[in-house]
């Protein structure tokens, strides 16, 4: 038991359990608000609490699998799920996940040393991918906010129109999304989405923008279809990571405790906050998460003996990274909660006024 805990899994004490529930809650609020899975916050958060990167990703994919089943039902009822499009992307998405699991497991198993030293290579790889992709996403979002402030237009259709002109056969028609797409465009996007979902658990950050800007799918359908796709990608990713022995079901269940409350609150927040404000907040939170992850990189480099410094600095880097992550998450979630509470009490006040008016005798 001690070996399992030291090498692969962590000892979960009450404070750690509460912090994981809090991570789930903040991740859920951000996820409901932004429309992504929230892994960009939960995965590094667990890594900061001492969970090895590969177990954090594996446990979070299992969490995403369960959550996507619940979330996609709602989208499906609203007609936001294009099942045909999801099925077409799934073929290569599964390949992407398998590739990601293989690389993560290889780096983890190939690590020398015991406990945390063993996972340093995989942790560094996961952090590197995380920083590169999320920096791009955050900058794109913030640029989009600045641009939409000046021209007020919807998503650009330049890439969609360019690919449409190429007329690469075979072309498949998707009646729910009302688009026609070449199979040769679908396959690489599916592969990239699956690879990102399998590596850091944020496939939606590739899949959703690609569906909007490359395929020309309406935004609501892109989000709903990605969530539907996440059921199968999550199931396949969870199966693969569990087969390799890297899913800690305790972490998955603790994340559920917070995230399934948070996601409803975040989704309510979308109704009461403007879209531009949502994008701006998302961009800032993601950027802060990236900085937090970057602060943890020297620790992994030190464990790999690529850099030399006083080992006591590790605690400082880790502490700073954790503080920054929680500060950004708590700040973002508090802002959303404040808007939600304000709108909720305002609604109740109006409702009570209506009830009083109705109960008054009519002249």
């Amino acid at each position: 038991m001690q070996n399992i805990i030291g090498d692969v899994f962590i000892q979960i004490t009450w404070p750690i359990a509460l912090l994981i529930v809090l991570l789930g809650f903040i991740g859920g609020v951000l996820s409901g608000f932004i429309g992504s899975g929230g892994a960009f916050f939960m995965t590094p958060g667990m890594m900061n609490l001492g969970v090895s990167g590969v177990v954090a990703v594996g446990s979070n994919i299992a969490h995403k699998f369960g959550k996507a089943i619940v979330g996609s039902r709602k989208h499906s009822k609203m007609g936001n799920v294009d099942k045909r499009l999801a099925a077409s992307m799934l073929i290569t998405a599964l390949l992407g996940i398998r590739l990601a699991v293989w690389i993560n497991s290889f780096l983890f198993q190939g690590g020398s040393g015991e406990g945390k030293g063993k996972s340093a290579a995989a942790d560094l790889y996961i952090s590197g991918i995380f920083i590169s992709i999320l920096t791009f996403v955050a900058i794109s979002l913030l640029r989009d906010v600045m641009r939409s402030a000046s021209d007020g237009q919807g998503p650009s259709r330049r890439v969609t129109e360019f690919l449409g002109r190429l007329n690469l056969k075979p072309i498949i028609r998707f009646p729910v999304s009302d688009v026609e797409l070449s199979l040769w465009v679908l396959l690489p996007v599916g592969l990239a989405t699956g690879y990102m979902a399998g590596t850091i658990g944020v496939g939606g950050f590739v899949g959703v923008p690609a569906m909007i800007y490359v395929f020309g799918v309406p935004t609501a359908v892109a989000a709903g279809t990605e969530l539907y796709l996440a059921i199968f990608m999550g199931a396949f990713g969870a199966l693969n990571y569990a087969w390799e022995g890297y899913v800690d079901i305790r972490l998955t269940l603790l994340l559920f405790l917070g995230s399934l409350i948070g996601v409803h609150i975040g989704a309510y927040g979308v109704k009461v906050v403007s879209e531009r404000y949502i994008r701006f907040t998302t961009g800032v939170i993601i950027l802060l998460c990236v900085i937090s992850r970057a602060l943890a990189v020297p620790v992994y480099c030190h464990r790999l003996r690529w850099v030399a410094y006083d080992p006591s600095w590790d605690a400082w880097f880790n502490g700073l990274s954790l503080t920054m992550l929680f500060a950004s998450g708590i700040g973002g979630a508090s802002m959303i909660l404040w808007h939600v509470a304000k709108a909720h009490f305002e609604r109740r006040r109006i409702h009570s006024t209506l009830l009083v008016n109705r109960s008054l005798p009519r002249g």
Partner: protein
Amino acid sequence: MVQAGPGTGGTKSNYTGGVEDDVPTAPNLDPSFQETLEALVHKGCSGGGQVVSGTRERLLSAIHMAVPYSLIAVGDLFTNRPPAFRTRMTRELSSFLDQHVKSPVVSTEDLGEQLRFGPKQGLKVALALTAVVVIYFLLFRNQETILDLLGGNYHEGHPWVAPVLVCFFAPLIAGLYGLLTGSLLRIIKLE
């Protein structure tokens, strides 16, 4: 109460050979619509309705913007069309109404599920709560055994057990706990 006519939502009307009526004739109210009105009268509530034929813009113009509607319920629309087309057109109509009218827009199916919280739902929630508590209690009481199945010595000999456990418990807990949180937030009217 506004009932959309057959042509609502941008569907093309039948070819008339260029002969158009000056004023579109409204078809008769359908029996279920009539029954709803009668049920409202029976309960002592006032009710009324109209049939609108034409595009979704015509439907919008039939809605009085000064009236604080509590809810817009979207029923079964475009029923004579293929499923994919029906899904898309219903979604677009809901989204159009959502953008133009300051009232929540829900499907009638959703409405039935969300607004009814009777003894049956109460029992469901109680059962879900019990199941969740039991599963969490058992899991955290038997952490050593579970971790051995997931990544310990037992896992080395039987690696298939871990995927079965994860793929069974993750959606089960998500479903049960999701039902609990959804019901709780519905009770405090935060949805």
